[in-house]
């Protein structure tokens, strides 16, 4: 089932792309005060409130052939984002980012900052303390965020359609395939099968998210 494999690959790559960015952003937004923090916060959360088509259009403006970034990527790395699988990944990642940042940030804010202080008095430097104490304790939030981002990436439609288009075996993910099947005469059965797959994936994602939140409750029990 190439559609399913492509969808899973795009969603997985988008989630992986999101992870480090979301952790860094959550860290900055939750723990630091710097000029432009509100602007950054708004920018990260924009895909939540903007129509996905508008986000896709924005990505075209940023990474299209005529743009500075698009030209640089094409010349330097021979990478073309629009109308490619990489583009579908980027579109899904940008749409999923705010969900992941919110989840990671909630996880981070639930951690007692005193624990890092305790780690410092035990001889750990700031980065050491973050990696060995805060990051493991954030893990449930990160897992929950990743599951959410993965599920959202599987369901991403508007931004992908606008930025990466609907190219079979390249950018036609599950949702685009359902849409295409419904547009095709006699495609209802295919659409039904794809909908079933889509629902199974959603249920699996919910179960994993639930497991992660239970783990979080055990870890974050006041000690």
């Amino acid at each position, binding site marked *: 089932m190439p559609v399913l494999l492509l969808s899973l690959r795009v969603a997985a790559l988008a989630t992986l792309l999101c992870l480090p960015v979301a952790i860094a952003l959550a860290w900055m937004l939750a723990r630091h005060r710097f000029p432009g923090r509100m602007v950054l916060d708004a920018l990260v959360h924009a895909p939540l409130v903007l129509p996905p088509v508008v986000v896709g259009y924005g990505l075209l403006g940023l990474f299209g052939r005529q743009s500075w970034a698009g030209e640089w990527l094409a010349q330097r790395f021979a990478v073309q984002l629009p109308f490619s699988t990489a583009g579908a990944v980027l579109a899904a990642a940008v749409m999923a980012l705010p969900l992941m940042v919110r989840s990671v940030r909630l996880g981070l804010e639930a951690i007692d900052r005193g624990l890092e202080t305790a780690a410092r008095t035990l*001889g750990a430097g700031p980065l050491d303390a973050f990696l*060995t104490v805060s990051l493991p*304790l954030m893990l449930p939030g990160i897992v929950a965020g990743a599951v959410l981002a993965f599920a959202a990436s599987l369901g991403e439609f508007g931004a992908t359609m606008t930025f990466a288009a609907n190219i079979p075996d390249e950018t036609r993910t599950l949702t685009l395939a359902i849409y295409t099947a419904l547009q095709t005469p006699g495609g209802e059965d295919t659409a039904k099968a794809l909908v079933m797959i889509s629902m199974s994936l959603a249920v699996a994602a919910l179960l994993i998210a639930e497991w992660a939140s239970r783990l979080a409750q055990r870890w*974050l029990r006041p*000690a």
Partner: protein
Amino acid sequence: MGQPLGPALVAPGVIELDFIARRGEFQLEARASLPSTGITGVFGRSGAGKSTLVNAIAGVAADVSGRIEVDGQAFLDSASGVRLAIEARRVGYVFQDARLFPHLRVETNLRYGARRAPADGPVALWENIIEALDLSQLLRRWPHSLSGGERQRVAIGRALLARPRLMLMDEPLASLDAPRKSEILHYIERLRDACPVPMLYVSHALDELVRIADHLLLLSEGKVMASGPFIELIADSTLQPYLGRFEAGSVLECVVKSHDEAFGLSVLGFVGGELRVPQLDAPLGTRLRARLRARDVALALSDPIDLSITNRVKGTVMSLTFRDGPYVDVLLNASGAHLHALVTRESCARLGLAAGVPVIALIKAVALDSRAVGYARRSR
């Protein structure tokens, strides 16, 4: 009183404090020179600045300026721009709320600091500390499954295993009930002998400090009121207002002289005589401290008969200090030992108490239970 510090007086074996720490509206002015051996009790009421003091030494407090030196190494020297990072100070900090890492088992918690401690310095004390704190049964457990007392024991062990040059304990018993407090104090007494790391022990409960402190740093409203040997300061009547009326009393250094198994009593000898107390689990010859609250001491002019009180100590009135309300603090000299008795002005007038009057101090044995008795450092 805070000793003014000359800049050239910094010697090894001393904790030099001369700094101002601000937290919001609050300001702590700390000027003191503390011995970097034994246990220094940091005492004061809530809001006196006790936590701010240890946070400044640990490097956890943000707004601190001045100078902090431990054994000749500057933790902070604003004049020359020195400010060591928390992890470079190597202070073991035991927090009120233990702060065990919830995602690590007890053993991994204990090894966290030990793994990061430099290889030089005293030999690792893993076995000693595990044994002194009875931690071997807890190693496989998770922090959330521990009781409050067990958590503090693990926190103390974890801090010590990082081989700190100085231990800071910020009211480590605050969240524990009385029997648990007594138990942890007993462990701290054992540690003091097993692992000689200087310790600053913050408390607003004088009876905790009586058991363990060698030195006292007295804080009030952001200022150092006194710093000196514990036994001397605790008997200093000019400091009584800071120590609190109902906590006032005397501390007697005693030796276990005999046990009376039949009646379940122990006999303690001190310079002023003997005290019978509920039996202690301590071998003969053990040196210990008995804390006697002023309100547990009654006075008589002649040795009364038909009285249940067994402890009768002869002494002479040295001074009377009139307190607010109906109370008088009578200071006695019993062959060199100083005893405080809190009586009413009415009793004082009826007995005609004045300096030089010989009296007999009556002390109930039950006022001296094991919680009022601390074990003195064995190595001295």
